[in-house]
């Protein structure tokens, strides 16, 4: 096709004819509409219609300025972002209806970055719609498959290469090459050993043991090194206490590993509400201790409804009945919350009677 001195395509050549809105050309554009014999025949393309910017240079220049203005606005907003980053104080607060109090820094950064990105995109869209060519193009489709001759030639060349390399005649080279390639991926597997060491039986034990003092989480100092025990008389019916073993106060680097398994909840139930004798025996005067780690995927369960004795997990709404051995009554958890047997020590503080009788937290492959 040809184009005029402004780079606009020659309209007449593209099938546009002022005498009739529909014209016929050699590309099949815009055949005259008659009732076709084959209703599914390719209708061809509509005639191309020029845009205002294609035929009027003044309009085109205006569009050019608009696109340039959007790009310039984007650049200004980007620079403004950098200025706002250093100049707007972090603590300043501005009020915007209906949002209310908002950080001035966040607001300025967000607005300026938004303006920068939006005007970049808006400029690109406007450029494409007004100034880039919008002439319809036809792309022919061909078979992807090569001809049989070309295929035969490729096979012949490959076989000649195999013969030239002598790989069939020299088995020593062939075998060592295959061997070298076979061991090459092994290092990728070998480094996986550093994911270990294997957990061994650590998933089956927690920091609780006979006589381990139960520390009230709310009495633990900010640095986590001191805390006080809890006495049965401190826990009235309906009270919820979140606890940790005394060992957690001195765990140091192991604190997170330890607490991930050993966090517990203490509640006091009316002993008459407790359904099984074993649960009553493992508690102390109606005070029962349960693992705080959900048996589904290990979230901390702590939404306690004191009248129904339901303990909910905030993640997936698993619900455990603490008056019935921590039995699951709703949700995806598959096993009851493990109960920790407790008693009191000589000073009258609540202590563990032993470790949990089963692994706490989510199921794992070898749990059995």
């Amino acid at each position: 096709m040809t184009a005029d001195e402004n780079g606009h395509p020659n309209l007449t050549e593209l099938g546009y004819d002022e005498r009739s809105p529909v014209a016929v050309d050699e590309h099949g554009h815009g055949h005259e509409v008659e009732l076709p014999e084959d209703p599914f025949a390719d209708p061809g393309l509509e005639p191309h219609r020029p845009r205002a910017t294609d035929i009027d240079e003044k309009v085109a220049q205006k569009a050019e300025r608009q696109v340039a203005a959007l790009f310039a606005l984007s650049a200004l907003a980007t620079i403004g972002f950098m200025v706002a980053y250093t100049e707007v104080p972090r603590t300043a607060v501005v009020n915007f209806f209906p949002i209310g109090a908002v950080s001035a820094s966040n607001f300025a950064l967000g607005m300026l970055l938004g303006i920068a990105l939006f005007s970049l995109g808006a400029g690109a869209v406007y450029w494409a719609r007004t100034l880039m060519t919008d002439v319809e193009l036809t792309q022919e489709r061909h078979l992807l498959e090569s001809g049989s001759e070309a295929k035969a030639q490729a096979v012949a060349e490959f076989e000649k290469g195999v013969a030239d390399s002598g790989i069939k005649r020299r088995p020593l080279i062939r075998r060592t090459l295959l061997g070298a390639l076979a061991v090459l991926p092994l290092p990728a597997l070998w480094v996986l050993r550093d994911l270990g060491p294997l957990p061994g039986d650590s998933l089956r034990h927690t920091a609780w043991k006979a006589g381990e003092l139960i520390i009230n989480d709310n009495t633990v100092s900010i640095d986590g090194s001191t805390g006080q025990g809890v006495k049965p008389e401190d826990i009235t019916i309906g009270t919820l206490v979140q606890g940790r073993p005394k060992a957690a106060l001195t765990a140091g680097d192991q604190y997170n590993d330890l607490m991930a398994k050993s966090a517990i909840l203490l509640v006091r139930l009316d002993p008459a509400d407790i359904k099984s004798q074993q649960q009553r025996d493992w508690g102390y005067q109606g005070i029962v201790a349960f693992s705080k780690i959900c048996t589904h995927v290990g979230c901390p369960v702590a939404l306690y409804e004191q009248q129904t004795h339901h303990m909910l997990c905030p993640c997936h709404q698993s619900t455990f009945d603490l008056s019935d051995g921590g039995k699951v009554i709703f949700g995806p958890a598959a096993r009851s919350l493990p109960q920790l047997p407790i008693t009191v020590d000589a000073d009258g503080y609540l202590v563990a009677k032993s470790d949990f009788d089963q692994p706490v937290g989510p199921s794992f492959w070898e749990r059995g």
Partner: protein
Amino acid sequence: MKSLSTRRRHPLAAFVVLALGLAFAGTLFAAFVSPAASADTGESAAQQLANGKALYISSCSSCHGKNAEGTGLGPSLVGVGAASVDFQVSTGRMPAKQLGAQVEAKQNIFSTQQIQDMAAYVQSLGGGPQIPAAGQYAYDANAVALGGQLFRENCSQCHNFAGEGGALTDGKFAPKLTQTNPQQIYEAMLTGPQNMPVFSDKVIPPAEKQAIISYLLNSRNEPNYGGAGLGRLGPVSEGLFIWTVGLIALLLCAVWIAAHTTKASAQKAAQAAAAGKAGK
């Protein structure tokens, strides 16, 4: 100027004397029986118990029993303490309108004095937590950080990290704490209303309760640093907002772009084509 005594037989003198006498008596009465005085000492303890009992019988006994022993409709109030009565009645939860999953807060219909009378009566039945003094729940700016830590440990699982509340089972829910007054928050921790666990003074000492209240009061005035808080409910409301409002805005943009053609009118195009031909 005539002396006062010469006017004592004036026809209006009797009215003046009467007015002065009434004013004097009224002032005297007001001075001895001011409302402030009656709240503290004007009402004897026995009188308060009697008033409280009368209010209890008329407003509470149909569910809690004539001796607060509890019935099938409501629990025993022996030992729940004055703090519990003050919380339940001042938030409008009690007297309950109807039984349901949860008794909700509503307009309180009693005066402060009446609530104190009922609280004193219930306290006299079997002890229990007392109404906290104003100093116990006063805002303490230095305790906000500690309060935040304790709130996240003990409260946020049900009431949300910003005190916006959350759902429980079977229609029950943990209410929002954004409007509750500090005294009521303190009493709720102390007494564990409805399904809320009890956090006695041994489990959360009074100073820590004050810290939690300070944190909540502080968080009410916290600006939303990232823009609209969207209820401060976390990723659910934020995701919902962007997937509805954000996506619809983008769709409207796309529709708007496509709805405006850039094509020239047929007339102009024809003129331009004619000019192009003539130019050749």
